[in-house]
């Protein structure tokens, strides 16, 4: 890695000053450090958010679960309340990377980075979560804006994400065999208002699929999506999968997510 300075502010206010001055927000480091070791990124200052109590904690808040931005994946995976209320979210967290990654990586870090093959964005989008930052609240539908791009302004920090409760939720990920990131990961959430379906790994960023949502809102069964057409034209093609294959996997993974949700 190139050289940098390192700060671990004790308060959110201090952190925001450092970030406003150009510091790089640093959470679990599982993605950032990997890029820095390859010398693809060279931030001059890392601002470690681990000491900020404002970013910690998991609690119920009305009809939602508020998960602090600095919550490690393994905490979400093991949290009894989340496992009961939002099993899809807890299971998603339990499947990110491996145990070592889950001990360090955080919800906020993953969501702020918005890797097109990361798992969490699909949960945030499908559950219609609200991203709380130091200065405002952003609806999931407005938050994700393309590959590695979000609605966050420079220096803006996610403090927590509010996940509304759902009747049923599940996540089914088909892994790219080498990286084990999602080749196609589908999060399905059923609420009183209907069904939301969010897809990660297959396109330039997480996206909802209207056809799948409509079919599942009518009938929350795997068979219901059998005739839904998944347009491959906007999907990724690479060494590991063509756009057609990703389109096919989206449907299969949707069916498997629904099966899990019903189980």
């Amino acid at each position, binding site marked *: 890695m190139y050289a940098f300075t390192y700060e671990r502010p004790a308060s959110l206010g201090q952190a925001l000053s450092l970030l406003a001055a150009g510091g790089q927000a640093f959470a679990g480091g599982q993605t950032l450090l990997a890029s820095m070791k390859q*010398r693809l990124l060279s931030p001059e200052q890392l601002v470690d958010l681990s000491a900020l109590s404002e970013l910690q904690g998991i609690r119920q808040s009305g009809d939602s679960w508020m998960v602090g931005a600095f919550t490690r994946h393994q905490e979400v995976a093991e949290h009894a309340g989340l496992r009961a209320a939002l099993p899809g979210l807890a299971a998603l967290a339990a499947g990110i990377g491996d145990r070592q990654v889950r001990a360090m990586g955080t919800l906020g870090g993953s969501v702020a980075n918005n890797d097109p093959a990361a798992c969490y964005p699909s949960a945030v989008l499908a559950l219609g979560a609200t991203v709380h930052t130091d200065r405002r609240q952003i609806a999931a539908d407005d938050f994700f804006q393309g590959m590695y791009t979000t609605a966050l302004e420079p220096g803006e920090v996610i403090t927590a994400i509010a996940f509304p409760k759902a009747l049923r939720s599940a996540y089914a990920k088909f892994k790219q065999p*080498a*990286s084990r990131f999602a080749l196609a990961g589908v999060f399905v959430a059923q609420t009183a208002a209907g069904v939301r379906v969010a897809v990660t790994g297959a396109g330039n960023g997480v996206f909802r699929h209207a056809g799948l949502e409509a079919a599942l809102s009518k009938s929350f069964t795997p068979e219901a999506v059998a005739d839904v057409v998944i347009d491959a034209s906007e999907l990724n093609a690479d*060494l*590991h999968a*063509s756009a057609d*294959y990703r389109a096919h996997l989206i449907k*299969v993974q949707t069916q498997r997510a629904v099966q899990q949700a019903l189980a």
Partner: protein
Amino acid sequence: MVNPTKFGSGQAVQRLEDAQLLKGAGIYANDITPDGQTRLCFVRSPYAHARIVSIDTSAAEAMPGVRLVVTGPQLKDAGMKPMPRPVNFTRADGSPAASPDRRILAADRVRYVGEAVAAVVADTEEQARNAAEAVVVDFEELPCAVTFDDALKADAPLLCDATDNRVAETRYGDAAAAAKAFSQAAHVVQLDITNQRLVALTIEPRSVLVYPDDGRLVVRMSTQMPTGVRTLVCDLLGLPTSQVRVVVGDVGGGFGMKTGAYPEDLVVAYAAHTLQRPVKWIADRSEDFLSSAHGRDVSVKAGLALDAQGKILALRIDTLANVGAYPSMTGVAIQLLIGPWVQSSVYDIQLIDFHFVGVLTNTSSTGAYRGAGRPEAIYNMERLMDEAARQSGIDRIELRRRNMIAPAQMPYKNPMGQTYDTGNFAAIMDQGLAQAQWDSFAQRAQSSAQRGRWRGLGVATFLEWTGGNALEENVHVQVLPDGVIEVFTAVNAMGQGIATSLAQLVVDVFGVPLSQVRIVMGDTDRGNGFGSAGSRSLFTGGSAVSVGAKQTLDKAQELAAEALEASSQDLRYEQGAFHVVGTDLKIGLAELAARQPEQRIELNSTTAASGPTWPNGCHVCEVELDPQTGEVQVVSYTSMNDVGRVVNPIIVRGQLDGGAVQGIGQALLEEVVYDPETGQLLTGSLMDYAVPHADIMPSLFDTHTDESIPCKNNVLGVKGVGELGTIGATPAVVNAVADALARHGRADLSPQLQMPLTPYRLWRLMQQG
């Protein structure tokens, strides 16, 4: 064997190596940091083919901590020789093998992405990396040839001063007679087979530390062949062998990738010699992906001609072997000679038509990787056999049985002139099938079907050749005054537990506790030899240890007779001491050693095996295919293996199973991919190169050995085992996938199956028709 004891051969002895390794006390090359150590970083080409116009090192030289910046042009101008070229092979017209000079740093041209053109030595790794980034290389990009088609077309960019990119060719057999047999055959099978390029992925990357010591150069390296490294260092630096010592500590995996020395290793030696300081280079994982020797990479047109009863009439193999931009002797020999030796495998085939061509491309060099030519050959043969079964309607086991060489035919000379000493292939097959519960597959298939999975059953019956073509080994045995029996041998540890197996052989002879035996390896000051490769360490090294130990015991007996003033015939040896029969007189080994003028009893001994070994096996694999996604999982893997006598059964099974998982990796996951246009390495990290993780199989291996057919070519009766698992796995798995497809009406797809059978590739194939 004399004196079978609890720790002698045949026993499942826990490894001597393990306590230290488990405590983190292993000493790998990167674990030693001499005072004043510097670190070396390479500047590598971003182009697959380019002329080096100029290199500006002025900025780099001025950076903090930098001790040396050296470039390829500088070394060439200073008279540095290129690396040795493949010899002993010829092109089709009889002219010598044609390949470009490989310089330790590229001087005029670069020929693959990642080829090193300059090196920086600095006090810290970070400083070296920073300075390497400041070296400015002016390249003039040239057209590149990455695929076989592009390398062989009429106007292909040429990699050396020859009329085309064919390094060398070999032909074997009788093309005309074979053609006749094919034209008259009742059944003809043709398959296009790709055996894809792989990386060895030793978890310890290439690692080398060179430092001056008392006027000499010491090379501490992760290598399988210290003597070969010393030879090359001396050759290129112009030093006498007495001035260079190569020491090998613990090696974190070799698999053939760490045989021989790389250009990078020579650069490190040059830098250390020039600076008279310790210089260390530890390859990044990405460097190992770019520039370590890759494995396999052949494109084959295979044909089998059979009569109406399924008896094989002729075998035709036409292979293009991608040897990379700078072929090595090993890389060429593997494909043009060694693989062909076992191509006809366990079958009685005498009419062959083989043609092998080594092709230069703008890619990294290929070399030995677990199996080294034999996996390619056996994969060809076993795919052909299953395809022949499908085409002819003859059961695939029956087809094999009809063609297998019988024990009565041993010793059997195959059409490549190789003589199998012994083997009972049908018996091994029958045992393997029984262990695998071959006949009750249908029930298991049904339970898979209930979970929406297509189950397939695959078999591979095969043999392989071991020895690395180096059948001799030396040992130096010493009985020391503290009672320790120390044996130096020039074979090399790389995880295969050879020290334990050799120690067990010493225990066989001396009957002392294992803790009193010390096996020493990996030091060119102590002894020299071929090293470890081609599954040779036990049958060559072990034979030498066993013979040397016995000779030493005989010598000790003579010395004991003198010491006890008795006749040697009146002495009896038992567990560490000589007794005069019928008396109380005795003398222990330690005391006897202490009494000698040199304070030890020692002996040098050389033993040669009389031929290679021919281990063989029957591997049976069951897979489940998910038709919705194309995903394949191996759900059971059973094998019966003939590795002759077994010295340590747990080590043997570990080699078979570990080797098999590498084969499963090739069958389902792994592939080195270059961009066909630009020659960029697309699979340059573990993010894109998929390998088996712990969840590769949900079940355990069921691995067996039959010791009733000892090898006749060495005193131990053992056969090499290190590569056998890898060789059997790729055909067993792919045949199982073909079987799964065939059972669901898609036998039409089996000829098109190509490794790796990733979910995407299989799904895409299944969309046809």
